[in-house]
Structure formats: C-alpha cells, structure tokens
C-alpha cells in the first residue's frame, strides 16, 4: 500500500469533504484543464474528472487527471462502462494506479444516444456494480476478473454514484447497499435540488447503516439561469428540479441570475451539511468552475484540512 490520497485522508479524518467536477476539453490542449484547475486550487480536497460525459468525445479522463495531478491535485478518475470492455477497464485501472491516481469513480455512463456519436456501438460488457467489484478484487485480492494473479496491485479508493431521485425511489438506498457490498467506499450523488426528497433517501440510507460503511458526498450544481434549470428538469435524465427553484431563478433580473444560482447552491449545501450521515459535498459546476471558490467560501468551507 502506498500513501493515502487526500480525499481519503480528509474523509477518514472526519472532516467535511469538498470535491468538484472538472469536465475535460473537447480538444488536446492541456492548458484548458490547467485553467480549470487554477480555479480550484486550495478550494477542494479532490477534483473529479468526467469520462466523456453525456457521451460527447472529450480528452480522456485519465489524461486530464494526470494534468491536474501535476498541479498538485488529488484526482478522482471517473470511469464509465459504456465505452470499454473488462479488458480495457482493468488495463486503465492498472495504468491509473501506476500514474499515481488515488481515486476511481465507477459509473454506467450516459447512453451514447444522448451524445454526438449516436451511431456508436455501446459496450456495457460489465455494469457499474461489477466494475466496483472488479476494482476491489484487483486491489484486495490481487486478481483480475479472469482469476489470474496481478503482479503489482492497483491502490485505489473506490467510489460510486447514486441517484436518489431516480425511480423506483424505494430501492435507491438498496441499490447503494449493493454498491457498498461490492466495495464502494464513497459515493457522490446526483445533483440535489429537491432537498426534501434527499432527506427521505438519507433516512433509508441510515436505516441500512450505509452512512457508516461508506462516505456520502451530496452532489450540488449551481444554476446559471432559469433556462438551465428548466433544461435540467426537462431534458437531463434522472434530474429532479422543483418548480419553486425555477420560479426563484426566474424572479430575479437577468444580471442577477448567476448570483441567485450561487445563493441557492450555498443554501443547499448548508441544508445538506445538517443531514446526519452526509460526509461532504461534490460540486458539479458545469462549465462554470470559476464559481466554485465563491460557493465554497460562502458555505463556510473555505479552509481545507
């Protein structure tokens, strides 16, 4: 075992963790990754790098993670099972660990029909829960999925996602239980706008004792405009944006949209922090990483452990 990553250190130390998402560019220029990284410096405990999110081709998550790592960040490598089979996934897990990446987030990935290569063949050789189990087996048992032995085990803190707002609602905590059983050590949730529903989900999570088995980071997203809020409500799968938030965004003048979006986000974080079992927040400021320092500071989380 090598040194623990910063995110794991913060969470195990009992501190309220702050992570943020960084979407890699649709091009080969590492400077745009560094630019986003500069906004997040000393503001977050780790940076997630998305894996061709919304099935749109971007710089690989692993490459962007390395760029950010060189800047001093602890990074969370997001891995979807949409584009790679078990051979490629295990290979990238070994590669990530070799490059010093400390965290992996296992997810299904948006279906390719949402992206710009709709004619692509999808893979889905294994699913996200099986990927969690695969990484755990590689790390803890030193074995590939085939059962063959690994020479030089990968050392990764294993994360998963869960959407408390998807249906059927009553199995959403059970589904997290399955992920924890498979080996997930932390979870970053879908963006929380409907706090009441998230509270209900957390009750089910606590009833299953999952908050004691895995660190739960609640996802938040600042809205830039009422149009974005409406878009997320109507067109993004699995998103639950209550009408009163859309109305609140619409009630302010255009120049104040972003300010209001940040205020809503900060208030949401304060409410989430008060929920028993929430170990941190994950800020997904979509193409608006510049907003993260202000959100973190206004939420009183500016001093990182």
């Amino acid at each position, binding site marked *: 075992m090598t040194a623990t990553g910063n995110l794991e250190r913060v969470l195990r130390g009992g501190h309220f963790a702050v992570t943020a998402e960084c979407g890699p560019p649709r091009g080969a220029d590492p400077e745009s990754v560094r630019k986003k990284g500069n906004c997040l410096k000393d503001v977050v405990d780790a940076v997630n790098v998305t894996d061709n999110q919304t099935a749109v081709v971007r710089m690989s998550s692993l490459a962007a993670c390395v760029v950010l790592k060189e800047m001093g960040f602890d990074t969370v490598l997001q891995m979807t099972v949409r584009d790679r089979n078990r051979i490629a996934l295990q290979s990238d897990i070994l590669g990530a660990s070799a490059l010093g990446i400390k965290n992996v987030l296992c997810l299904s990935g948006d279906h390719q029909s949402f992206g710009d290569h709709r004619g692509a063949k999808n893979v889905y050789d*294994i699913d996200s829960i099986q990927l969690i189990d695969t990484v755990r087996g590689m790390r803890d048992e030193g074995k590939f999925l085939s059962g063959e032995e690994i020479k030089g085990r990968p050392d990764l803190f294993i994360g998963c996602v869960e959407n408390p707002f998807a249906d059927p609602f009553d199995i959403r905590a059970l589904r997290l239980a399955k992920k924890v059983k498979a080996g997930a050590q932390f979870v970053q949730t879908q963006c929380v706008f409907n706090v009441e529903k998230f509270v209900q989900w957390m009750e089910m999570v606590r009833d299953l004792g999952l908050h004691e088995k895995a660190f739960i980071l609640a996802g938040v997203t600042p809205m830039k405009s009422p149009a974005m809020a409406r878009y997320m409500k109507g067109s993004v799968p699995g998103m639950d944006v209550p009408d009163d938030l859309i109305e609140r965004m619409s009630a302010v003048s255009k120049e104040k949209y972003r300010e209001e979006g940040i205020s809503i986000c900060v208030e949401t974080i304060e409410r989430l922090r008060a929920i028993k079992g929430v170990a941190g927040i994950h800020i997904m400021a979509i193409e608006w990483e510049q907003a993260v320092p202000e959100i973190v500071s206004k939420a009183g989380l500016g001093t990182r452990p």
Partner: protein
Amino acid sequence: MIVADRKPFNEIINMIAPYGRILLIGCNECVTVCAVGGTKEVALLASQIRLKRQGDGVPVEVDEKTLERQCDPEYAQALAPVIADYDAVLSIACGCGVQFIAETYPEKTVLPGVNTRFMGVTEQHGVWSERCQGCGDCVLDRTCGICPVARCAKSIMNGPCGGSHGGLCELKNETPCAWHLIIERLKARGELDRYLDIEKPKDWSASRDAGPRKRVREDIKI
C-alpha cells in the same frame, strides 16, 4: 419470432436498377407474422416496383413466389428449376433467409428487401417489441422472466441505472425500464431481498462475441 421492417422503397428501387427480370421471394414464417415478407407483401411490393419502373420508362418483369421457409435447404432448393431465368432475386425474408438463398445459389445476385430488426413478440396487432438477444446463457430465472440483456438499453445486470423515471427508460419515453419491471415483480412476489444479490459479470462467450455460432446435434444428423 424474427421481426423485420421493409427497406425504404427508393433504396429497393436503386438496388434493383440494373436488372430487368427479378424474382421477388417471400417467406411464410416470421416475416409473414410480422406482416413484412409474406405472400401479401410480395404481391404489394411487386406491383409497386412494376408501376414505378413503368413510370420511369424502364419496365421490369417481377415474378412472385413465397417459400415455406427461406432458411431451410428443402424449401430453398425449390427455386432451382426457375432461378436461371432471372437477373436477380429480391428476398423479403429476414437476413437468415436472404443469406441462405444466396449461399444456395452463389452465382445469383440476391438482394435484401427488408431490414431485420430483432427477436420479439407481438404485443398487440401491429405492435412488436424485442425480448431476446440470443446471448446463449439465459438469466430469466434470476430476473423474474424479464430480460435485462435485451430490454435494458445498457444491458445492466444489476439495475436500474440512474435514468429510470416513472417506470420508463431514459432513452425513449415509451420503452418500459426493464429493471423497474423486475423490481415490481420481485415486490409482488415478496422476493425483494433477492435484489441484494450481485449478479457477476456475464460470460459473453456464449453470445455473438465468441464468433458466429453453430449447433450440431449428432444424434439427429442424417
């Protein structure tokens, strides 16, 4: 059954453009049931082709025939006495039928008049939907008789994903989420505790992934 759609008419017309004598063949099996390649559809397509080519000033002779099965040597060989009379064969059977006619008569141009879609069921008159992908290693015993391989857009074995909403798949509003159906059935049977069982990675070597498949029954071979 195998469900197919007729190819767009213009595609068919372009495909047969070089030919003056065509044998249009249907099949009495699946494509008849899904109303795309039986005797009726052969007659309809033949008339459409004749009219179109007549109108374009390049008349074509189209003869019609529907085989009991295009995927069986016994019936495929029935074309032997007449096939030499034609420039090309247009088959409106599934891809298996088209290929089997083509391999029975390798000297002949055999063209597909339908796009073969899926293995499915008749939900109601005029509505067919997919049920099976022929993965070669059936999991229906563990999924309450609902197949996540064929019916989940991501073939997730431990679903549902985060896009399941109101019982529907995130992709197309009219498609039921297979995992929602599975969970509803588990609940109805009082077996929700089984949901916690983690399904291990599937062995796709029984599926198409291990290459084209073949089944040989030595005991019934002649």
